[in-house]
């Protein structure tokens, strides 16, 4: 694997391999010495054109646990035009000898542009691009589901037959997209629930069931996994829905809806949460909630990805 740009192109065996290696990595996180020498002497750059402290520190912890040197490059608010700064920045990082670039960018496709360019010959990890994909988030979500479902017997397993309901702003969510492709590859069934304004055009051609009605979906699907997406307040101003109260009433996970879930169902959220909007405090803090596990698992997944991309001999430039 040279880059990780999306989950759409990830083969089932490769996905399971990443999850399995993440199991090994998560064991390291429980040891007294939480460090492996695998990437000693390698340089990983966290290139963030968009603020995301959580994702950045997760990648930073992952790289450091593999003994890589980490450089954090926050390129947000640069005065040069966006286009120039991506190329110039990439060439700067190449000159500094970066082996891996973890890129977060508000423009969809920016990681792919970087990977295809001859500006830099480094492994590229997409840490979230526009409304396109966020592959490590989907992988950590799948890892979290697999652990909850299969426990210590997770290795080698997929998610065949697992029903996942993803609720919220599908239109703008790279997490929803990456999860859809990965979960389908791993054999899970996916249902999207959102107001019609927040369902992407053409989603009817996607391998997911689309519903506008959360209560009907919960009753019909009895999901193993209920994933609540963060709702951005600026969507209200752009006429996607009238106000927070109406959104919360129709599509929020409140305590009543939580009570309808089976005891083994799990509640996920990619964070950061808007408590009281898309998820109630009771649901967020319930035993079914995996929010904190997701954070811990994120480090293991990112260790696995960085290991796979950067440890082996460098593949010929594509």
């Amino acid at each position, binding site marked *: 694997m040279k880059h990780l740009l999306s989950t759409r192109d990830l083969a089932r065996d490769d996905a399971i391999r990443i999850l399995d290696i993440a199991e090994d990595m998560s064991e390291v996180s429980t040891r007294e010495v939480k460090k492996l020498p695998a990437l000693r002497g390698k340089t990983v750059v966290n290139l963030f054109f968009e603020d995301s402290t959580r994702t950045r520190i997760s990648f930073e912890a992952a790289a450091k646990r593999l003994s890589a040197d980490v450089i954090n490059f926050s390129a947000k608010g640069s005065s040069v035009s966006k*286009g120039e700064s991506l190329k110039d920045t990439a060439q700067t990082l190449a000159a500094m000898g970066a082996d891996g670039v973890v890129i977060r960018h508000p423009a969809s496709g920016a990681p*792919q542009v970087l990977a295809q360019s001859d500006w830099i010959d480094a492994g590229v990890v997409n840490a979230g691009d*526009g*409304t*396109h*994909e966020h592959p490590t988030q989907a992988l950590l979500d799948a890892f979290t589901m697999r652990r909850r479902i299969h426990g210590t017997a997770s290795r080698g397993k997929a998610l065949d037959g697992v029903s996942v309901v993803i609720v919220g702003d599908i239109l703008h969510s790279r997490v929803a997209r990456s999860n859809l492709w990965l979960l389908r590859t791993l054999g899970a069934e996916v249902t999207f629930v959102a107001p019609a304004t927040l369902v992407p*055009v053409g989603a009817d051609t996607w391998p997911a069931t689309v519903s506008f009605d959360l209560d009907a979906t919960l009753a019909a699907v009895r999901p193993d996994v209920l994933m609540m997406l963060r709702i951005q307040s600026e969507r209200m101003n752009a006429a996607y829905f009238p106000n927070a109260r109406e959104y919360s009433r129709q599509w929020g996970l409140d305590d009543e809806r939580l009570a309808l879930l089976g005891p083994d169902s799990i509640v996920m959220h990619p964070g950061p949460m808007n408590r009281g909007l898309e998820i109630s405090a009771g649901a967020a803090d319930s035993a079914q909630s995996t929010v904190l596990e997701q954070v811990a698992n994120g480090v293991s997944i990112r260790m696995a990805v960085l290991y796979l991309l950067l440890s082996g001999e460098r593949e010929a430039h594509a």
Partner: protein
Amino acid sequence: MSDRYLLKGATLPDGRPADILIEGDRILSTATTTTGASASAKAGTGTTVIDADGLVALPGLVDLHTHLREPGFEQSETVLTGTRAAAAGGFTAVFAMANTLPVSDTAGVVEQVQALGRAAGYATVRPIGAVTVGLQGERLSEIGAMAQSLAGVRVFSDDGKCVHDSLLMRRALEYVKTFDGVIAQHAQDPRLTENAQMNEGALSSELGLKGWPAVAEESIIARDVLLAEHVGARLHICHLSTAGSVDVVRWAKARGIQVTAEATPHHLLLTEELIRSYDARYKVNPPLRRDEDVQALREGVADGTIDIIATDHAPHPRESKECEWDAAAFGMVGLESALPVVQTALVDTGLLDWADVARVLSNTPAAIGRLHDHSHSFEDGSPANLTLVDPAASSVFALDRLHGKSRNTPFEGVTLSGSVRWTFHKGFPTLRDGVLAEPGEVPSRV
């Protein structure tokens, strides 16, 4: 070099073989073998004889939609470099869009653009005037002054932006009637396309690029044809890109509305699937659409719903394309690739014959733009604006075919039929067997 040329054994657009004799800026005679009269007999000594066997002769191509970028954006293109590209593509006239800096919204600017074109000499440059001051869509520009200037502007367009205010559009349509002008509308509802990046559909959703719905184009066209009908004005629609737009124009024509429409070569060949690469060379306004749209546009050209093909040649410097998709500029260069794309998409597929090509790439655009004494049908005494095409050539389009300042072609690496071999502008060969004349040789037309 002599100013007498004999093009021996060319094939006219209607398929007849002919010897074409050019003297000065006129076609002295076109002798088809069936008429028996031999142009060669009249040629005499001092005539440059060109073996045109196997080459199709077309009236000089006329592009109603070219961005020459001068004044203001000379890092992308100048009138000189843009008309060199035109000559290389078989064009003898280009209509220069108004989105320059300063905007071509006054007589001074349009006269300057025309003067630059005459000085360069590679092609006839007809400036297009802005409909509104500064392309701001608020107040009409000095349309009368531009129409009556030395540039004699007849086409008015805010291209790049839509004249979206309904009342302003109505007034513009009415006002240009005074000068026999036409409004060339860039049909794009601005609210429906805020920050839009590509055709709206399943693919835009998958790629996470903001969608540009077909309805944003079609609704403006529907409004404007009804406005044109209401005020009895001529209307030209730039670069149709959707099947729905073709339907609306077809409906309008059936109703007798004075509407003409254009399609670009790239919309006749390329689809949105290319955008999977996030390669900004494929970023264009209007965006590349679905295969269904490409097929509908081709049918529209074939049945005459779409009157002309225009390049929307839009040069951009490298840095505007070597970047992430959202930050990249819209536009593609198209002058050199236009005829090969038209042959590949429409002639080789049997939808058009060469007479149709002459119509959609020369006769009709000249008529819409009121460009007189330029295009023709090879009658004796016609202006010597013509191009010779080798339709048997087929090659992978490469960057060395480009002669403008910018390299943003979407056709690099695409196999295209046809090759422009010769171009004559007012009797002067600007392109000689594929080799472009040097600026010093080309006579200025001042």
